[in-house]
């Protein structure tokens, strides 16, 4: 090269060196940008890559009765799960597994469906509630089952003897809709209360889920556990329910096709028992009920899935007469000496309303204890629907009862405004007369009736029923004259303790334990003129579902009212079965209370 060419070479080489240095500085700048300026951002992304977490299901709270007897059990259960990082080989694994434990095609399909829904890191429950032989068989073949492991969980068991399916409800996996509403419910294995106490106290029973954080690799395989936040078990609930009484009442009512009963403590509003028969086995639900069992329950004519004690709507029948009488006394329309002559019927307009038989001249006490309809036709007419419905609502009719308890229904206390709105018709005297004997539009649930009786027998205080013991509670006085209340209570005592009373045959013949009450029948179908002419005023000969319901409301003991009861026996054809059941329950309850000395 010439000198000139050489200089050019050196110049270009220098330029090249500077260019390279410049490019290296760019690399340094980029490094500075990624690591220093954006460092924390990328740090978060790296952590996000690395850490995955799995929720830990909390132990559900216990439920105890008033004496501390557990009403549910959390039993340890074993379930076989497939770890998420092994999902690719699921078909082969299931094939091997079905040779060890029984897996139906239906179950397998369910597993495939679940697998598509679950996130990558969730484990998949293949089969719950394994038996011991199954557990040991799986452990034995563990090497042939990649990703399969046995997890220990807990399953809710309900004691068979209690049969308290309606009272307690049950737990089951949350529905898809529930899972969308509450993200916590999408935790695999978490169960929620479905009905009854389990649902009523669900948020407290449920507890707080924990979290287990894992380090995962790029293939989402768990490398190691990083840390764990333990789950907090749900709260224990102490109910006012007396398990012994509940079981006894259930037993008594099981003798009938379909019945319900509610027993309250008049002093504090504690619900001592809440029974509806027929019942069902709540243990069918926590593990997922089979289609066969479900259809059987659903299609049963005696509707075992319905809690009749809180959602059964019945015309209260003659039981409402207590309140009609009180309304008349309260309005000073009658006093204890006022009488009405009962010829066995009454005409309103040109419509004839019947009584059971001619009672002759009756005062309010006799009218109640012998259940004279004509007396109440007459005074209901005089009191009028406005005052009548106001008083019924005061005593809790049409208000439902336990606020927030699942499957609660409100009865109906008709008013003029209600009829105008729903039936688009004016209220008539005939309507009032029918309400006066608890028929027509009026409807009530057993729970509402027992609240009404408890308020009546408790001295006109606005008792509020509850399922959880709240200690000593005092209720607001509703302002009814104690003399009027006593008159009604005396009539109730007479009903069950004087030979002419409608419940005399099934009295409690033990001093200090006597009960008071009022019978009632609730018409399912009107008795036709033809039937009446033929002397068919009883409905016992009709097909079961057309027979009238038998009701009894009462309390015991008569001297110091403590327990209020309502029994409804569906389609009993009369009140006698309800009275018998109430008598048995109240008697047993008092005997037991006396024996245990409280």
């Amino acid at each position, binding site marked *: 090269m010439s000198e000139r060419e050489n200089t050019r070479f050196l110049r270009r080489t220098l330029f090249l060196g500077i260019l390279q240095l410049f490019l290296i500085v760019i690399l340094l700048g980029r490094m500075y940008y990624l690591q220093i300026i954006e460092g924390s951002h990328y740090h978060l992304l*790296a952590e996000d890559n690395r850490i995955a977490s799995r929720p830990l299901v909390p132990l559900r709270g216990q439920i105890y009765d008033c004496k501390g007897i557990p009403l549910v059990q959390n039993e340890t259960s074993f379930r076989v799960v497939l770890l998420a990082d092994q999902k690719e080989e699921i078909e082969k694994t299931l094939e091997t597994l079905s040779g060890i434990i029984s897996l139906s095609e239906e179950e397998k399909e369910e597993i495939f469906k679940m697998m598509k829904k679950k996130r990558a890191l969730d484990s998949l429950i293949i089969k719950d509630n394994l038996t011991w032989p199954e557990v040991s068989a799986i452990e034995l073949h563990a090497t042939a089952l990649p990703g399969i492991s046995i997890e220990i969980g807990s399953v809710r068991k309900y004691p068979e003897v209690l049969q308290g399916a309606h009272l307690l409800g049950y737990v089951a996996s949350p529905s898809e809709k529930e899972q969308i509403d509450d993200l916590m419910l999408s935790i695999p294995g978490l169960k929620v209360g479905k009905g009854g106490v389990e649902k009523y106290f669900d948020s407290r029973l449920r507890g707080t889920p924990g979290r287990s954080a894992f380090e995962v690799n*790029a293939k989402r395989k768990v490398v190691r556990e990083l840390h764990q936040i333990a789950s907090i078990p749900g709260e224990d609930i102490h109910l006012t329910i007396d398990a012994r009484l509940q079981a006894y009442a259930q037993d008594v009512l099981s003798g009938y096709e379909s019945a319900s009963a509610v027993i309250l403590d008049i002093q504090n509003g504690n619900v001592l028992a809440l029974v509806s028969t027929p019942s069902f086995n709540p243990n069918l639900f926590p593990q997922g009920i089979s289609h066969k069992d479900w259809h059987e329950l659903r299609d049963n004519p005696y509707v075992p899935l319905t809690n009749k004690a809180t959602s059964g709507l019945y015309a209260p029948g003659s039981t409402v007469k207590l309140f009609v009488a009180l309304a008349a006394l309260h309005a000073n329309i009658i006093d204890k000496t006022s009488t009405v002559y009962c010829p066995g019927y009454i005409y309103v307009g040109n419509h004839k309303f019947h009584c059971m038989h001619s009672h002759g001249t009756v005062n309010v006490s006799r009218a109640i204890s012998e259940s004279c309809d004509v007396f109440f036709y007459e005074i209901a007419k005089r009191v009028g629907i406005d005052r009548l419905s106001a008083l019924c609502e005061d005593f809790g009719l049409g208000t439902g009862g336990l606020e927030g308890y699942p499957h609660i229904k409100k009865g109906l206390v008709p008013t003029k405004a209600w009829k105008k709105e729903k039936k688009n018709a004016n209220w008539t005297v005939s309507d009032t007369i029918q309400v006066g004997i608890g028929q027509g539009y009026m409807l009530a649930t057993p729970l509402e009736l027992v609240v009404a009786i408890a308020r009546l027998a408790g001295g006109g205080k606005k008792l509020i029923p509850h399922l959880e013991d709240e200690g000593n509670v005092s209720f607001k006085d509703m302002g009814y004259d104690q003399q009027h209340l006593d008159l009604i209570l005396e009539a109730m005592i007479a009903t069950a303790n004087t030979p002419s009373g409608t419940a005399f045959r099934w009295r409690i013949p033990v001093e200090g334990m006597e009960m008071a009450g009022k019978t009632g029948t609730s018409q399912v179908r009107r008795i036709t003129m033809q039937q009446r002419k033929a002397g068919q005023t009883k409905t016992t000969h009709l097909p079961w579902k057309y027979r009238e319901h038998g009701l009894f409301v009462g309390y015991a003991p008569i001297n110091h009212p403590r327990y209020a009861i309502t029994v409804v026996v569906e389609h009993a054809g009369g009140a006698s079965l309800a009275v018998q059941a109430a008598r048995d329950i109240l008697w047993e309850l008092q005997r037991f209370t006396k024996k245990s000395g409280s």
Partner: protein
Amino acid sequence: MGTPTLYKEKWLMTIDFTPSLFQQLARLNWNIVFLILSISAIGWGLLVSAAGGDIHPWALKQVIRFSVGILIMLTLALINLRWWLHFSYIFYGISLLLLCGVEFLGFIGKGGQRWIDLYVIQIQPSELMKIALVMALARYFHSQSYPIPFHKLFVPLTLIMIPAILVLRQPDLGTAMILLMTGGTLFFLAGVSLWVFGATFITISASIPILWSFLHDYQKKRILMFFDPSQDLRGAGYHITQSKIALGSGGFLGKGYKQGTQASLNFLPEKQTDFIFTLLCEEWGFIGGSLLLCLYVLLIVTCFRIILTTQNDFGRFVAAGMTVTFFLYVFINIAMVMGLLPVVGIPLPLVSYGGTAMLTLLMGFGFVLNVGLYRTLKIPRFSIGVF
């Protein structure tokens, strides 16, 4: 024997005089050897970390290969530069034959026919070609009279284009780019007018659509993905996204040796080969990354000193070619893992796991050392033998 200066002048300037092995070793640029050793040692440490703290399967093998490589490097460094001048075209010819050979003898590996199986070792002819091309171009430019007339540029252009096209067909976009850019740089140093470069740039820009159709789908994907890595987080964009996360999450001081979560949990792909710089930056942070960059800069600066002080044209071009190749490796790899360039499969020189690339680079440095040793040797442009 006279003064050391006279002595030095004597044997370096005289063609027939052969210095002893000791004399040659004493004159060798040990700075380069030391820097190479330092950079490689960093690599071995990273390979241990990549294997989760084990010298298997990578680190030990890499050290053994390096030992062989460094011996080859020193051997090449001590052979007379004139000898290399003589054999440069033959070297190029053999490399070209091998490159053609992969078309028939090579087997599929990593989506391209890049390897040839010689039963004893597997070599990548494209790697050999990187050296052979530099040698051949250096010899060509050595034998020219300056300034080189325009028509004399077609021969060296052919020397570049034939292997470049063959490599591109394999397909190996990264190597083809290095061949083209190294060749281009030597053209630049040979004093080719800037307007030729301008014209070439325009021509290439215009032919991009045509070149595009020659690219394989995965190459197109990689290039497209480079412009928008967020488009495909799980597929082709996964590599670069995870690499940036790993690198960025290292911060200033890094997560600590063997503590790189992205690498150890396999979020970082190819962590022992192409993405090893990310591993370094994740575990050693900005400090570690800058340190390695500084070592590279020192090495390159040392090489530039040799280029600038070499008296013969062949040596200058050889040293410049090797240095540029080395720089391109460094720059493309690091820019690629930081998302500045598309992922083209270029290893980080001396650090990434892999035998062929390391051997090529050590051979390259062998020639640089050789040039350094013979930098005062003057070789007339017509003093070449038959070859």
